[in-house]
């Protein structure tokens, strides 16, 4: 239920580490540092807080956080979210202590056997929403897990296939049985509208195309805001607020935001016409005071011009149309196997 007690219209499922929080946990030292870090020292990615607040502000929206961080981190993470003024409806963490006590060391690193049932249980635990949007990152297998979750709900994955996927993901038997049970009981529907993957590792975007148009890799939260605007989830005014938070962080400039928009259009993830419509609506929002008190910024028509110029620089070539071809059914066993191979390779090379 939403705070008002009504059934949710739209559920937004968020990962935390490397999606909302800039977290380093690639080495044991990073893990220890992260565990003992003060909430005030933890850093959210620029724009992520503004998006979460905007999403939460709308009627019928529900925020569910499912993170792979251990349950012992709950108080620190909750304090950080409170400091950022982020409200949520559900906060699920991984009980790694239980895994250690039961000698389930494989489960400490496993992704699919933890996240998929957690997502399904979350959907079962409340009145089902007709729409869901999910936020993850490229550090782990979020794009695959979210796609699998979406296709399980949509009835596109047979239970026998799901069993094979769980085996490929090296789930323990009872984990697999529980996941299959949850998948049977979870309210069905083609409800996952969008999967936004924050490219923390700056991964190449091409491999995400095979997951279909639903999955959009983004380099930053301005791009996420543009996608959500195109999906009708955020207003132009809210996109402006996201942009302002990013400019305030000093990690972005108007130029880099304009280039981010160009990148999205070039990749066929944002239609040119929608980008232009946003510029018009953002101009109206600016005229209505959305940019009030921002002395450092040029007049909005100058900003708008800069963004239009970025589109013009693409020539007549980029229309913003999806260029990934027809969405094909996904072979999740192969995807999970490939992801495992990639992780092994990264560990071997000492990469993140």
């Amino acid at each position, binding site marked *: 239920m939403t705070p008002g007690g009504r059934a949710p219209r739209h559920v937004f499922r968020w990962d935390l580490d490397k999606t909302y929080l800039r977290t380093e946990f690639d080495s044991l030292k990073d893990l220890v540092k992260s565990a003992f870090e003060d909430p005030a020292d933890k850093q959210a990615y620029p724009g992520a807080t503004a998006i979460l607040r905007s999403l939460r502000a709308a009627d019928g929206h529900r925020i569910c956080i499912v993170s792979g961080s251990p349950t012992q981190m709950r108080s620190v993470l909750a304090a950080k979210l409170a400091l950022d003024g982020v409200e949520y409806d559900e906060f699920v963490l991984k009980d790694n202590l239980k895994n250690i006590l039961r000698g389930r060391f494989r489960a400490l690193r496993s992704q699919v056997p933890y996240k998929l049932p957690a997502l399904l249980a979350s959907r079962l635990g409340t009145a089902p929403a007709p729409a869901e949007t999910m936020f993850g990152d490229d550090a782990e297998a979020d794009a695959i897990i979210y796609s699998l979750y979406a296709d399980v709900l949509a009835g596109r994955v047979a239970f026998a296939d799901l069993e094979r996927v769980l085996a490929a993901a090296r789930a323990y038997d009872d984990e697999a049985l529980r996941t299959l049970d949850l998948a049977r009981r979870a309210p069905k529907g083609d409800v996952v509208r969008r999967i936004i993957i924050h*490219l923390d*590792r*700056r*991964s*190449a*975007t*091409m491999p995400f*195309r095979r997951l279909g148009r639903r999955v959009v890799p*983004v*380099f*930053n939260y*301005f*791009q996420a805001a543009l996608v959500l605007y195109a999906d009708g989830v955020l207003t132009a005014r809210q996109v402006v607020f996201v942009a302002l938070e990013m400019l305030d962080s000093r990690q*972005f*400039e108007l*130029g*880099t*935001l304009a*280039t*981010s928009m*160009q*990148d*999205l259009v*070039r*990749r066929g993830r944002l239609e040119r016409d929608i980008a232009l419509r946003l510029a018009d609506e953002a101009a109206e929002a600016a005229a209505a005071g959305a940019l009030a008190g921002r002395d450092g910024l040029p007049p909005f028509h100058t900003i708008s011009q800069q963004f239009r110029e*970025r589109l013009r*620089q*693409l*020539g007549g*070539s*980029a229309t913003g149309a999806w260029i990934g071809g027809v969405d094909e059914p996904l072979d999740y066993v192969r995807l999970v196997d490939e992801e495992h191979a990639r992780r092994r390779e990264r560990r071997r090379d000492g990469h993140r």
Partner: protein
Amino acid sequence: MQRIVVDAMGGDHAPAAIVEGAAEASLAIPGAEIILVGDAVELGKLLPRVRHDGARVRVHHAPSLIEMDEKPAEALAAKPDASIAVAAELVAAGEGDALVSAGNTGAAVLAVARRWKLIPGVRRAALASVYPTELRRGDKDDPFSLLLDCGATLDATAEDLVTFAIMGSAYAKMISKNRRPRVALLSNGTEAGKGPAAVVRAHELLLEATELNFIGNVEGLDIPRGVADVVVCSGFVGNVVLKMLEGVSETILRLGRYAHKQNLTWRIGLAALKPALEQLKSVTDWEQYGGAPLLGLDHLFIKAHGRSSARAITNAVKVASKALSGDLCGTIATGMRDFADRAAKADIRAPGDPDGKVEAPT
């Protein structure tokens, strides 16, 4: 934020290697935006295949390109929308701060020379090239010396040679982290009176009107030894020297291959030397330098080698970024003003012909 324009269509391995190199640079240089100029459709196919930062790699469409073997002036006239022309124009219009190209050298130099201005006091721009030497230099223990001019112009007056010395010294200070680069004039003898009139006069001017670490004249054999960190000569001489050094290096390689095929004893000998040869190769790897700067214009142009790999392009962008961070053009301008002041005090004619032109390279 630095904005480094990259001609994505120029070079033997363009656009794939250029895009890959620029993409890597977007991750390696946090304070820079890379502007890739070229066929937007083609670039749009390549960028998603490589890791990069989408907020800091911009694409600027240019519908045509100049091939490596085209005649510079004719090609530029026939294709005003070629990637190198559009890239040079972007910098001239203030949309970019520096330019990197691995494309047709003549067309690139001509494109920037027609659109950019010479630094006050500079009469002719100079193309500088690095070459590996026996002695090393600077805080980085740099194995490369700088030779300029390598062919941006044919001839040079004494004042031009002094200008080249000032520009080369500023560049070596910044890029090699060499606090006091040793500057020398290339001549046919180390004595001050040896060489053509322009070299003799330049020798006097460098001693009287500059504070450079001028060590006098050097001969050709001193170049590979690394006696000087910056070797100054006219474009004609520099071009001949550079090509001769390249020729010698290629001949040695060919002789090595010949020896390898000729008999077993030589083959074993070469095999025993292989680790040392590999080490030598890595030390003198030109790709770590990325490219040769064209000095004397009001913006920075790094001419990367036509055969540049992605790594060479990344390094060329890094060199451009470093030169921008150190305000190389401003430093050269200051050096030229100092020279003019000293020359005036010493009642010596200083360079500064405002109509100075950059000629197509030899």
